[in-house]
């Protein structure tokens, strides 16, 4: 499914997509919280971009761990520890590998999302990134189990993540800074669910 150069290509793509959506993510965050999600994520992925040249002779596990550590030390806020943890946990699953297949990817995604659940002490239905992450993981698993088609499974994951974004519009935030405005958060989509969906879409496009 993906070797080291493909993983590097994906990381670059995610950075470019986050940069392209910087204002959009910040605007979404501004409506329901403190308006820095796009700014912080862009700062983090720019810092990741700067260390990409050191990735070429490394295994996928090491690369993802270094991406996670860089996000952890540059993003700040809640997204830094959450995405940082997700990449580091995914990296631990891919330790030593120079190529991963779809089963590896599913295990990596699952470990990363599990890291977000534990670190954020959160679950679905609280208007967070998990409202896209968990349905996406479930959809990818179900589709791949049925058809053994990586591309099809990733597309199903993106669709589920997008539906997750739509779902976040209908609910009130109970976790994160958006929870402070209570019912006023209803009607607006969650920035974290949106940034995750952007990342997954980047992966799906390149596989």
């Amino acid at each position: 499914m993906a070797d080291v150069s493909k993983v590097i290509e994906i990381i670059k793509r995610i950075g470019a997509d986050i940069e392209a959506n910087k204002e959009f993510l910040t605007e979404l965050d501004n409506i329901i919280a403190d308006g820095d999600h796009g700014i912080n994520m862009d700062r983090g992925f720019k810092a990741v971009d700067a260390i990409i040249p050191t990735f070429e002779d490394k295994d996928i596990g090491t690369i993802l761990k270094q991406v996670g550590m860089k996000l952890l030390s540059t993003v700040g806020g809640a997204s830094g520890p959450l995405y940082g943890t997700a990449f580091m946990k995914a990296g631990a699953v891919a330790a030593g590998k120079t190529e991963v297949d779809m089963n590896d990817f599913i295990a990596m995604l699952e470990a990363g999302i599990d890291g977000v659940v534990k670190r954020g002490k959160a679950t679905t239905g609280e208007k967070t990134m998990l409202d896209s992450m968990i349905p996406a993981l479930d959809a990818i698993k179900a589709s791949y189990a049925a058809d053994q088609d990586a591309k099809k499974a990733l597309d199903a994951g993106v669709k589920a993540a997008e539906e997750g974004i739509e779902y976040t519009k209908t609910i009130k935030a109970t976790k994160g800074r958006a929870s402070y405005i209570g019912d006023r958060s209803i009607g607006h989509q969650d920035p974290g669910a949106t940034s995750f969906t952007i990342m997954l879409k980047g992966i799906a496009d390149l596989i």
Partner: protein
Amino acid sequence: MKKIINAVDQVENQMIEGMCKAFPQYVKKLDAGNIVVRAQKKEGKVALISGGGSGHEPAHGGFVGKGMLDAAVAGAVFTSPTPDQVYEGIKAIDSGAGVLMVIKNYTGDVMNFEMAGDMAKDMDGIEVKQVVVNDDVAVEDSTWTTGRRGVAGTIFVHKIAGALAETGASLDEVQAVAQKVIDNVRTMGMAIKPCIVPAAGTPGFELADDEMEIGIGIHGEPGVKKAKLETADEIVDQLLEKILADIDYAGSEVAVMINGCGATPLMELFVVNNRVADVLADKGIKVYKTLVGEYMTSLEMEGFSITLLRLDDQLKELLDAEADTPAMTVI
């Protein structure tokens, strides 16, 4: 956006440098980042570390010094500092008696500080404990949610826990008194004009000339409701009603903080305090001490918060204990 800055990505750094250059007798910056520590490290005491996003000046670096904090870590504007930065601060201030982290209750702050505390415990064997400040009554409290925000009441935690630490008390004792402050302090704020995060360039919410936002936090985020602007007395009554309903202040003595959000004239803060003092007197609540000024700001937001701390003899003594920091001096 109109601001007196050089570059958006240099604001935090240059602010910290400028603060340290202004107060070299009190504070210095660590090379590892935007971490302010005491100019002279005091050995043999429990060390206090706090921090959060920038944009709350003088919090938190302004409260580093004798009788208050040992370190303050500044993240990007309104963004929690990262674990590696907090970890560097913890390592710099520990002198063997342990470190207390004073964290404001935000998802990001709690996660970043807890990760830093774990790093210091696991890698350096430093004894690290924490308290989480959640004084904002505007937000509903529930075990199922993120819970209440930490806002201006945090300054009373710095003052009182810092004073006890200075006496050589143990980490458990300092943590306990910090928690006692948290259990007895309540705050609520409002704004009439939003602030602009430099990197964002646009305000966090919009208000018409005759509108106000009630129940704002300290990050330029919207409050719990938008309403028509009222008189100072009516606004004070509204905020105090929520605070006084939250814990029983009847017959007790309190410390009052009227905190300006960054662009509110002192004149208006005193107008506010005039009403606060009268209402408290009416209700038989005795004001032991009042602080009026800017302690926990939100950039150039125009607004204020009211904080009430219910006192006992221990808290009164520690509130009155000596403090010597850039932004608070008690002699």
